[in-house]
């Protein structure tokens, strides 16, 4: 694979809700192996953009091209499950777990799109089905220990603390076997220590060959791990570049960082 070919190309994407332009003509590229950060004031359209990429919303205008290396596949209007199958996984800003299920089952469900057994296999417990179930459990446990939750595999997921729930969401997303992982404010609600361990986790994810795009308001985190930043404001891209450039960009300071945080 050509290392510099973009994994995801967002090309002039707009999204309108009634009279509100939540995104207008946003374009940028996500290069494989590079952590991209998406920042911007509240209501700038970051989550909306994730939703467009992940297939929850269909962009009003523009193109989304996933995996341009394979000759640019246009993915506008694909449904979420199809995007997941193609290799885009995500977490949610307001955690959405299968709250009555166990931690393990949450992650097992993540394996859904990489497995294939149907009714027949389920009812007759064919050898193939049992083998697949075994593989699902192994994979799930691998991701649980990856995020450090293997000890809580049999907890009901709603009984986890906030930070653990975030981790579990990440494990579930990783279990879908993505090439691109969208994290929506993963550090929200974490204390500095936990944030530090999240940084380690994100680096480990990158090592697994998964490219991460993240939305985050914790500037310390963003500045320390993102190699590339895209800044949105009022649905428009107002800046793009390395952390250093962004930190000094007056427009970004004005709209988003404020004076205090600029020095963080």
């Amino acid at each position: 694979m050509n290392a510099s070919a973009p994994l995801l190309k967002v090309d002039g994407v707009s999204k309108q809700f009634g009279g509100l332009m939540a995104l207008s003509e946003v374009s940028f590229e996500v290069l494989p192996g590079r952590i991209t950060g998406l920042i911007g004031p509240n209501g700038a359209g970051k989550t909306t953009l994730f939703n467009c990429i992940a297939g929850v919303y269909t962009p009003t205008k523009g193109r989304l091209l996933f995996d341009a290396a394979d000759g640019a596949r246009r993915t506008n209007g694909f449904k979420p499950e199809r995007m997941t199958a193609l290799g885009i996984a995500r977490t949610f800003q307001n955690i959405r777990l299968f709250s009555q299920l166990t931690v393990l089952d949450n992650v097992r469900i993540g394996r859904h799109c990489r497995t294939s057994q149907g009714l027949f296999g389920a009812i007759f417990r064919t050898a193939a089905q049992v083998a697949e179930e075994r593989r699902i459990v192994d994979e799930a446990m691998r991701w649980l220990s990856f995020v450090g939750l293997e000890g809580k595999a049999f907890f009901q997921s709603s009984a986890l603390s906030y930070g653990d729930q975030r981790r579990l969401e990440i494990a579930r997303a990783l279990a879908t076997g993505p090439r691109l992982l969208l994290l929506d404010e993963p550090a929200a609600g974490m204390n500095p220590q936990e944030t530090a361990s999240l940084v380690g986790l994100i680096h480990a994810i990158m090592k697994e060959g998964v490219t991460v795009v993240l939305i985050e308001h914790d500037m310390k985190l963003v500045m320390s791990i993102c190699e590339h930043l895209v800044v949105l404001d009022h649905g428009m891209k107002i800046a793009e570049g390395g952390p250093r450039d962004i930190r000094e960009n007056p427009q970004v300071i004005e709209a988003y960082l404020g004076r205090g945080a600029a020095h963080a």
Partner: protein
Amino acid sequence: MNTKTLLRNALLLAVLAIPLLPFAGDYLLHVLTLIMVYMVLAMGLNVVPGLCGMLDLGFVGFYGVGAYTCGLLTMNYELSLWLILPIAALNGAVWGILRGAPTLRLTGDYFAIVTFGFSELVVLFLTNEIWLTRGPLGLPGIAPASIDLSWLSKAINPEWDWYWEFIGEKPYFYMAFVMVVGVFFMMRRIEDSRIGRAWFAIREDDLAAASAGIDVQIYKVIAYAVSAAIGAVAGSFLARWTMFLSPDMFKFWESFLVLCMIVLGGLGNMTGALLGSVVLIAMGELLREILPRLGMPAETRFIVYGLIMVLIMRFKPSGFLPKIADAALHNPIIVELRRSLKAKGVV
């Protein structure tokens, strides 16, 4: 074997032995068989509200479809029940899909009212299309079930005639028992599989489910089909058991009764569905027995019945067995995993 499985097997054996007991008359066997019919219905309905989280108020429609499929095939073509069962299941599934496919976008009570409307339409069809169903006159005199192995026995020895007609309640009791056990294990296995987990995921959060790669619509349709097929199987049994069908038997109330069973048992819990059926049917019969002894007239039966339902919910708001997805915990793979985690000391 641990004590739990031991207990379960003992219970199964005890149930199997009931017809052999001296006091087990037709009435007891009839009621037990009725309970088992409702067990099958409850397990069938459970798929949609219990596993997928969609409120279904019209399950009785599929019960009716199955019953009339069986009744008509028996009366008009004299087909064997064993042949009819798969046909009826398939017919039920088709109707399940026909009802489900257009309603995929609907959520909550909007879905519920459509299911209700659908079952009312089924009952109206059964009532009004007299040329096909005899309408309100009903279908009396449906042949009882039978096992016909004469083709086999004749081939071995022309003297033999392996043909048994189901007379009385006993054979139906055993047949219902087999049906319950079969459906139960089938559903437990589906529940603890990729499909079952997909259903649970949809029940918990359909957007998160889609993001986990589950095609929500397809899995809902599968759920509707499975649920309807089970309902239709119960209906087929009913037709050959009561030997009489009429559209009155498939009124709204049956849907609610079955819904009450699964909620009382614990929505989404298969064992709970069984328990709910036992409680609601047995309660009706016990009250029939007890109230007159307390000097209360027959008219008070449902006052007490309604009150008990309210009280059960009051003290068990999540039903008797609220745990969902518990089939997975008994899966050998999971049992093994737990053991190894414990051994490693991480749990």
